[in-house]
């Protein structure tokens, strides 16, 4: 298709400049794209605006939506052009001329002067977020400043001022409490308002000094000053084991790795401490238990020594000075008592302490005396010898019989087997007769004493030694009260109907008091594994070091006692 184009360029004075060109191609095209026949840089014009094609003898104009052409004043996208038509395409006005021979389309092209006034709408609508007042930068800096100021600078400044953070809290502003990464343990809850009681200096880790501010007074109640763990407190941080602000919060770290840091190889970690054993896990490598047994009863020292001995030691016997057959007392058929035959149980003598952990001490008066009565004279069944020093017993007997002889009451037994008869009331007797009566009474008392000490009474339970005719020595009984002071064992938690005492203590078959009835580690391991409950230990209770042991050397540390905990919570 051949197109003849005449460009009309009107000068200022109205003179028209004409430039012509002849174009050959498939169609006459108009648009902003560079391949268009009539090209404009007007930004309002699409890349392809319109095209005119010769279809037979007709000239057809087509505009590509959304572009529109104006043909003879009419807006359209589709028109058949005639000679003389005026077509407005964007900024151009085209006039269709009579095409000369060999040319399909002849047009003049003139710029539309009126559209030069590219008047924008009076007020361009605000169609951008930035145009309607949304801003990023001011908000960014404001929020940055707000979080930094409220989260850090304000509490920091308040921290350095007297009562500053208290004032902030009163004003419901963020204070240094906003820095707390988690709740405090309930024992420390009272400190929650005063961060500075522990965090004494800025940028410095909590020191032992801060802990000791409150705990110095009671620390050595449960940690002996010379105890290895007490010494270690000086070189270690309390906070390395007692971590606060963590959830789940537990001030006592029960992880056994903490203990094994030192106890896995004590020779290396504690070279100065003698006799510390290697351990890795209760279930796998805990040594046999040692008992802390009172010893030296026989040596006659007033304060028997405590001996730490392995339960496995061959021939290990308790030397408490007591003779006591557990088996006879626990006889299933019963045992003779002043009230008739009775089947006894452990609890008849072993009375639990109030906390349920252990038992009250065994005492003659409390546990034995109700059966083992200290009567000596059938004539006066309510008279007993004192349960005390042997000399006092002898004296009590002499006093008793002197009284009786002087009172003139015949001693039935004495009368039966002796010619010594008392015929007169002592008050009426002559001094010589009274002296004889007293001599007889003393003789009688010594006979009874021998019987009491050596045959029917003391010797039942005690080791008795006769020193001379009038003196006996009775070995005192020193029962071990706490066999395993290094372990925290709760009897109340263990003694159930499923686990009677005999589960751990073979008392029913024990014939002598010297036999040690403390269970060895094997018994515990029936139910308890260590921290590792895998493999053969599957199904057992996981028990780490702290299940039984307290680090600070106490079986029942102060802070675990209900009364102390209450006081700690209330006060501090």
């Amino acid at each position, binding site marked *: 298709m051949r197109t003849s184009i005449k460009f009309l360029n009107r000068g200022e004075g109205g003179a028209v400049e004409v430039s012509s060109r002849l174009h050959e191609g498939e169609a006459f095209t108009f648009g902003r794209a560079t391949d268009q026949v009539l090209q404009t840089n007007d930004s309002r014009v699409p890349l392809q605006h319109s095209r005119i094609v010769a279809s037979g003898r007709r000239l057809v104009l087509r505009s590509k939506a959304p572009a529109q052409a104006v043909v003879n004043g009419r807006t359209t996208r589709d028109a058949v052009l005639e000679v003389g038509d005026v077509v407005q395409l964007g900024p151009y006005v085209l006039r269709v001329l009579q095409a000369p021979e060999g040319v399909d389309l002849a047009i003049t092209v003139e710029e539309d002067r009126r559209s030069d006034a590219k008047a924008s709408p009076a007020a361009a609508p605000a169609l951008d977020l930035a145009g309607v007042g949304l801003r990023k930068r001011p908000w960014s800096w404001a929020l940055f400043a707000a979080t930094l100021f409220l*989260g850090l600078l304000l509490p920091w400044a308040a921290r350095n001022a007297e009562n500053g953070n208290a004032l902030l809290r009163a004003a419901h502003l963020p204070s240094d409490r906003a820095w707390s990464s988690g709740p405090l343990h309930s024992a420390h809850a009272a400190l929650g308002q005063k961060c500075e009681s522990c965090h004494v200096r800025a940028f410095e880790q909590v020191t032992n000094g801060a802990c000791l501010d409150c705990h110095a007074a009671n620390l050595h109640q449960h940690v002996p000053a010379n105890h290895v763990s007490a010494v270690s407190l000086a070189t270690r941080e309390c906070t390395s084991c007692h971590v606060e602000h*963590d959830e789940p919060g537990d001030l006592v770290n029960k992880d056994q790795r903490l203990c094994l840091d030192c106890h896995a190889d004590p020779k290396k970690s504690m070279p100065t401490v003698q006799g510390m054993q290697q351990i890795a896990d209760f279930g796998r490598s805990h040594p046999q238990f040692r008992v802390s047994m009172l010893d030296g009863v026989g040596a006659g020292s007033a304060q028997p020594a405590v001996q730490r001995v392995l339960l496995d030691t061959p021939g290990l016997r308790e030397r408490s000075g007591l003779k006591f057959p557990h088996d006879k007392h626990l006889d299933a058929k019963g045992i003779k008592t002043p009230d008739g035959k009775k089947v006894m149980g452990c609890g008849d003598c072993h009375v639990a302490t109030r906390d349920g952990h252990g038992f009250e001490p065994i005492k003659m008066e409390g546990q034995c005396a109700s059966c083992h009565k200290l009567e000596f004279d059938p004539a006066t069944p309510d008279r007993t010898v004192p349960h005390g020093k042997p000399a006092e017993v002898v004296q009590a007997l002499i006093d008793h019989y002197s009284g009786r002889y002087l009172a003139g009451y015949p001693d039935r037994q004495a009368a039966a087997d002796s010619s010594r008869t008392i015929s007169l009331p002592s008050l009426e007797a002559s001094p010589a007769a009274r002296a004889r009566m007293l001599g007889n009474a003393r003789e009688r008392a010594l006979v009874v004493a021998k019987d009491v000490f050596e045959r029917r009474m003391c010797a039942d339970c005690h080791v008795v030694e006769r020193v001379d005719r009038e003196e006996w020595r009775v070995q005192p009984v020193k029962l071990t009260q706490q066999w395993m002071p290094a372990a925290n064992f709760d009897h109340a938690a263990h003694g159930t109907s499923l686990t009677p005492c005999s589960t751990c203590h073979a008392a029913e078959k024990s014939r002598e008091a010297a036999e040690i009835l403390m269970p060895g580690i094997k018994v515990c391991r029936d139910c308890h594994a260590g921290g590792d409950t895998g493999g053969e230990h599957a199904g057992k209770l996981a028990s780490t070091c702290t299940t039984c042991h307290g680090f600070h050397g106490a079986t029942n540390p102060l802070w675990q006692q209900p009364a102390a905990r209450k006081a700690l919570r209330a006060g501090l």
Partner: protein
Amino acid sequence: MHQSFLQYRGKRYLWIGLALCVVAVLAYGWHAPLSPPNGGTWLGYTLGTIGALLILWLTALGVRKRSYSSTLGTVQGWVSAHVYLGLALLIVATLHTGFQFGWNVHTLAYVLMVFVIGSGLFGVVMYLRFPEAMSSNRSGQTRAQMLQEIADLDQRALRIAANLPAPFAEAIGSNRDRTAVGGSALAILRATDASQVSLAGEDGVVRLQANPAQRAILDWLGRELARSTDAERTRRVDELVNLMAARRTLLRRIVQDARNVAWLQLWLYVHVPVTFALLGALVAHVVSVFLYW
């Protein structure tokens, strides 16, 4: 050929981000600290340091995209890494917390970070969704061009209306002056057209009417067209109908375009300011942790 920032270099940063997550999760699972997991264990410090450095680097995208002369990687590469490593940050920072949260400056920093990452993810979705719709709606034109075209239509319509009775000029003029699109963030985002026009009624009284999508003026012109008995007048009114119909299409496209662009930009108005809030909280978090060690 165009390649999405998500596909950049065979999703290189997706794999790097995933690797970071996997390593962090495995380390967290393997790590058995003496205390409950928290930001203060060695792994906690490690994850925290990685997280803080990531945050600073992610923020640096705002600087990098403005330094046109920089040769420090392409901006597309930066955006790709920004998206994938930003998502990985969520895992790293969550593990850093040890799942311990509270009403404190530390959790504040975490929550702000989650907001930033969430808004960023929203932005990615918008970038996947809108550009195609946007260019098909624009069909090669800019918004300025479309506005200019509307201005031209109005000018032409006014010239035609000048040869018609006065109510026509009033209608066309007020239609031009009372076109109300955009104006508020909500109107832009909802593509609301609150335009009005003052039209003469049967009684000759001019009334202001709502004119969404040029409906009122087109209806009015349609009625006028039906009533016209004069051929010349009919031709002119018909031309006005054509012009206003074109105007409606253009206006709809403009409003739609503004909506598309606004949705494409909206998330940034959360993403950027909250990032700065996060930076403030992050400084407060890091400093306060060591201030009260």
